[in-house]
């Protein structure tokens, strides 16, 4: 893989971010991110999967340097190596963060309708977002935006339109345009295609992929839909209850998963041409204010033994670039009858 030849752009080490609340003298702590370490290379698409309330949104909030109370970074470091110098977002001042935002570190948000201001024309929104970081004014700025929109296959007329006049797919392309107009080095995409139908979804995904390749940016792509990861990510990391439970190259994650949760996620994907009964994972994600002891997946895990109930499994390397946090990773088999050829291979 070409992964090794490129330098790390992002280094996360032992990150712990908790929601700390204190209402009327009652203290409450929700451990949304509980000890995550990972590196992301330049020019890489890293997929993050996890169900709702697994802490993935809190994690990317920290990555995006949008740490506001009650969310607090308790421990660990998040360090970017941008071209204009390194930045440590957990300790950076507001001015430092403002300096890299949009220009180096950018964010494609979920729900294009609620991101775009409904009473402003798209052109005005572009001005609000990009004029200052780009440092251009008037015609030069307009030309830059129009040429960027052309790359996204959007006509210049959209600048005159209001958000409600555009279709869902076009709006999503506009938000991608906003996030990429300054040619950022690092893009965080939070479920950018969840609300779109299959045809438009594929279009938007290939657009993100093309833009990323062209600018050689890194992308962190967050979604719970594993079939999206299969097609866009170079590496996939699975977050469960605030911890990274497995990460590895996309192909290995699908064909030889080493964590029972990943194996389940892959197996539960339905597929055209196959009507065998799919297993559904019982139970619910743990409450992060009071997570279970030991491995946090053990109450729902078919492989759980006593050790899993008491001791937290470390993230061990099982293959090149492939790490998993499971005491019994050697016993993890792709589930039989899975949505995937892996079921046959095993």
């Amino acid at each position, binding site marked *: 893989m070409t992964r090794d030849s490129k330098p790390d752009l992002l280094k996360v080490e032992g990150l712990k971010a908790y929601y700390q609340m204190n209402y009327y003298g009652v203290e409450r702590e929700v451990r949304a991110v509980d000890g995550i370490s990972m590196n992301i290379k330049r020019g890489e698409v890293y997929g993050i999967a996890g169900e709702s309330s697994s802490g993935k949104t809190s994690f990317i909030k920290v990555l995006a340097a949008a740490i506001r109370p009650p969310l607090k970074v308790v421990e660990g470091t998040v360090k970017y190596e941008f071209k204009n110098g390194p930045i440590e977002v957990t300790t950076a001042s507001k001015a430092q963060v403002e300096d890299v935002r949009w220009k180096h570190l950018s964010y494609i948000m979920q729900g294009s309708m609620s991101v775009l201001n409904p009473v402003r024309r798209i052109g005005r929104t572009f001005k609000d977002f990009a004029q200052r970081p780009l440092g251009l004014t008037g015609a030069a700025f307009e030309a830059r935006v129009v040429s960027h929109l052309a790359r996204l296959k959007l006509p210049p007329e959209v600048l005159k339109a209001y958000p409600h006049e555009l279709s869902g797919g076009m709006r999503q392309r506009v938000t991608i345009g906003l996030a990429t107009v300054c040619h950022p080095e690092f893009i965080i995409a939070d479920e950018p295609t969840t609300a779109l139908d299959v045809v438009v979804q594929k279009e938007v995904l290939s657009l993100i992929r093309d833009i990323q390749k062209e600018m050689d940016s890194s992308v962190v792509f967050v979604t719970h839909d594993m079939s999206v990861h299969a097609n866009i990510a170079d590496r996939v990391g699975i977050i469960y209850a605030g911890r990274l439970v497995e990460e590895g190259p*996309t192909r290995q994650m699908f064909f030889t998963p080493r964590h029972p949760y990943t194996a389940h996620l892959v197996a539960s994907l339905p597929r055209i041409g196959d009507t065998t009964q799919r297993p559904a994972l019982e139970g619910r994600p743990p409450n992060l204010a009071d997570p279970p002891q030991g491995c946090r997946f053990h109450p729902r895990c078919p492989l759980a033994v006593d050790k899993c109930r008491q001791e937290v499994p470390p993230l061990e390397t099982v293959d090149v670039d492939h790490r998993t946090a499971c005491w019994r990773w050697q016993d993890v088999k792709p589930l039989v009858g899975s949505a995937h050829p892996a079921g046959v291979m095993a």
Partner: protein
Amino acid sequence: MTTLLDVRNVSKHFTMGGIFGRKTVNAVMDASFSLSAEKPEIFTIIGESGSGKTTLARMVLGLEDPSEGEILFQGQKVSRHASKAERLAFMSKVQPVFQNPFEAFNPLKKIERYLESTARQFLHTKDRAAIDRVMDEALQKVGLSLKEVRGRFPHEMSGGQLQRCAIARALIPNPPLLITDEPVSMVDASLRMSIVNLLKSLRDDLKVSVIYITHDLATAYYISNRLIIMQRGRIVEMGDARTVLDNPQHPYSKLLKASVLSTDDAGAGKLATDPGMVQAANGLVGEAGKLVMRPDGREVRVYG
């Protein structure tokens, strides 16, 4: 064979804009299908956003009157202007389940309140024990119990559990027909299968017919008996789910199938769609054509 639901040549137009610059949007054009009363099935409506699938469902639910054509449920015309008693009788037989369970429930009320009011409405009783029994029965059907749900607020449940509660509520009057509008699109992938499997068991064990509206072809293939594919208000292909999805005939159906993200070559990064396919599908928008029966039992819209 008696029909449960008969949709006959139904169209729906919406008028947009004021006196000047008035525009008509044809949300649904000439849709016909019927469901049999004897053989419960999962009938799927597939289409992109704006294809008219939700409008069709709203008409079946009697929330919207068709501009042309009529909808008969058990021989009775579905109408928005029925009397309250008729409307209640109809509602006890056709029940909806909506897309986002977090929006369907009032966050300030306990979940049981929602179930309770449905039970009271349709059982015409104030007897607490009877209401509790009905609620528990309905929750048992979806794999929950009143003991688990009692006293809990929507935020205390996971999305999958909440969607199951919504289905349990719909099951309280024992309806022969459920209409589910994208019931899994807001639910996590890992919980999606539990909802889809539940719909399947409702059909197989409780003999409930389900109209399943979705844009997800994979789950449609997995559970449905028959399906229709809609493009901009028109049905373009209709027939047995396996026959249609294994080998779609209409250009739009082909495009839909080609757009489903496959995990077969995970990591290969194949994302390109054949532009010829998109053109073929979009070129047909607005043309009337007509549905023609094929030898394998499906109907495909042909043009010219």
